[in-house]
């Protein structure tokens, strides 16, 4: 039993299977919101109101022909999708799903998660680099440029709740508003929350920050040459990244909830859905910006904003208000 338990953690809950189901549900919700904001219907016919559509898309890709470009590095090209998927699924293991301490949670797991969440971008860069096609190369360089733009504000923004809670453990940060009894701390972190939301959007490479894989410009960016199973794995990776990213932001900024597995799970669903909804609103209401514009934007506005927020929190903390 002691051998089976970690395997179950990794493969079923809170590992791959749970994340897959939850993330496809979130993708469906994102697509539905996005469509309704544009006065369209969105997915409709697969499952209840099209809820199975993302699963169907991924399944379809698994049955498609898998092509490796003749000039690409076959080993690295095939390795990348697995590596990216492994990174995000591992990050997802640290998700505080309900009040109980998740498997192998430890003091400082926030840093590990941030590191694991940076990996997909590097993987994407390498994927583009090893496919050796003009569009992949342009996309790959864009991935890295964009990484340098959003990563620092993202870290700074997630630092704020950690400073407030005085801990580097996600679990403790999440329960801080409840244990300390001061729910109002959620309110004063609004600026950091906005920065985190925008940089998460950049991390997920969605409009207005879908510069690396801008379809009309560089076809698919680093993923141009990918097809079949490998593309499907990238799709799953992207979905799980959205789930993990938005669940973390929700956990860090919205706090945990008492009440055990069922209510805690429901609260996770609700708060993650709220973050995903906000992400879809951002996706719907802007045009894709240029690579030079995102660098300017994040260093000129996002980084200073997160610094200001950190400063405010530190001052409050120093004066003993928090």
């Amino acid at each position, binding site marked *: 039993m002691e051998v089976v338990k970690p395997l179950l953690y990794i493969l079923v809950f809170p590992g791959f299977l749970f994340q897959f189901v939850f993330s496809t549900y979130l993708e469906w919700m994102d697509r539905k*919101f996005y*469509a*309704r*904001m*544009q*006065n*369209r*219907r969105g997915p*409709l016919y697969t499952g209840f109101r099209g809820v199975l559509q993302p699963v169907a898309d991924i399944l379809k890709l698994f049955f498609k022909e898998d092509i490796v470009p003749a000039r690409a590095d076959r080993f690295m090209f095939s390795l990348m999708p697995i590596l990216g998927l492994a990174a995000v699924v591992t990050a997802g293991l640290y998700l505080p799903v309900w009040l109980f301490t998740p498997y192998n949670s430890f003091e400082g797991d926030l840093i590990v998660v941030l590191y694991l969440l940076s990996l997909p971008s590097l993987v994407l860069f390498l994927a583009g680099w090893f496919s050796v096609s003009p569009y992949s190369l342009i996309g790959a360089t864009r991935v890295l440029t964009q990484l340098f733009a959003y990563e620092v504000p993202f870290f700074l923004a997630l630092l704020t709740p950690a400073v407030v809670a005085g801990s580097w453990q996600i679990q403790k940060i999440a329960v801080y508003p409840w244990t300390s009894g001061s729910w109002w701390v959620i309110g004063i972190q609004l600026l950091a929350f906005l920065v985190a939301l925008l940089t998460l959007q950049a991390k997920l490479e969605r409009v207005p920050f879908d510069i690396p894989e801008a379809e009309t410009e560089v076809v698919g960016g680093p993923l141009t040459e990918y097809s079949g199973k490998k593309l499907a794995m990238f799709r799953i990776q992207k979905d799980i990244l959205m789930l993990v990213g938005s669940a973390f932001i929700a956990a860090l900024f919205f706090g945990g909830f008492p009440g055990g597995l069922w209510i805690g799970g429901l609260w996770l669903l609700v708060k993650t859905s709220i973050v995903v909804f906000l992400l879809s*609103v951002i996706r*719907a*209401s*802007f045009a894709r910006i240029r690579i030079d514009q995102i660098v300017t934007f994040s260093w000129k506005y996002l980084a200073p904003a997160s610094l200001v927020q950190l400063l405010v929190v530190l001052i409050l903390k120093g004066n003993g208000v928090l």
Partner: protein
Amino acid sequence: MLKAGIFIPELLGNLGHAPATREYPFVKTPVPPGFRGTPRLRPGLCVGCKACMRDCTAEAIEIVQVPPDPNAPPPEPGTKNVGKKFKMILYLDRCVHCARCADVCPKDAIYLDEEYEMANFTRDALRLEME
């Protein structure tokens, strides 16, 4: 002059509206009167002048005379002879639905129906014979 998020109210407003798109393959879209669909022949009216054949942009129409059926009972003496019979062969894969054939027909023997789902897997299925 620039206002961030100027588009958001409209988008959020759309959440409360019914979608503008239709569930097409399941709910058929009605077409307005006068829609130009598939050309159809009213064989009884055709006099075989071939004006439609001459003016068809895509050369999609062929009017041929139907050979009298040898097995058919001979017209009873005394009844009015219906005369020659014609049939139209329409190559729907070529037709451009301009309705010129309906315009030039002196006897109004051709009309366009409201059929708009004409896709098919083989060309043979798009060769229509009307008599």
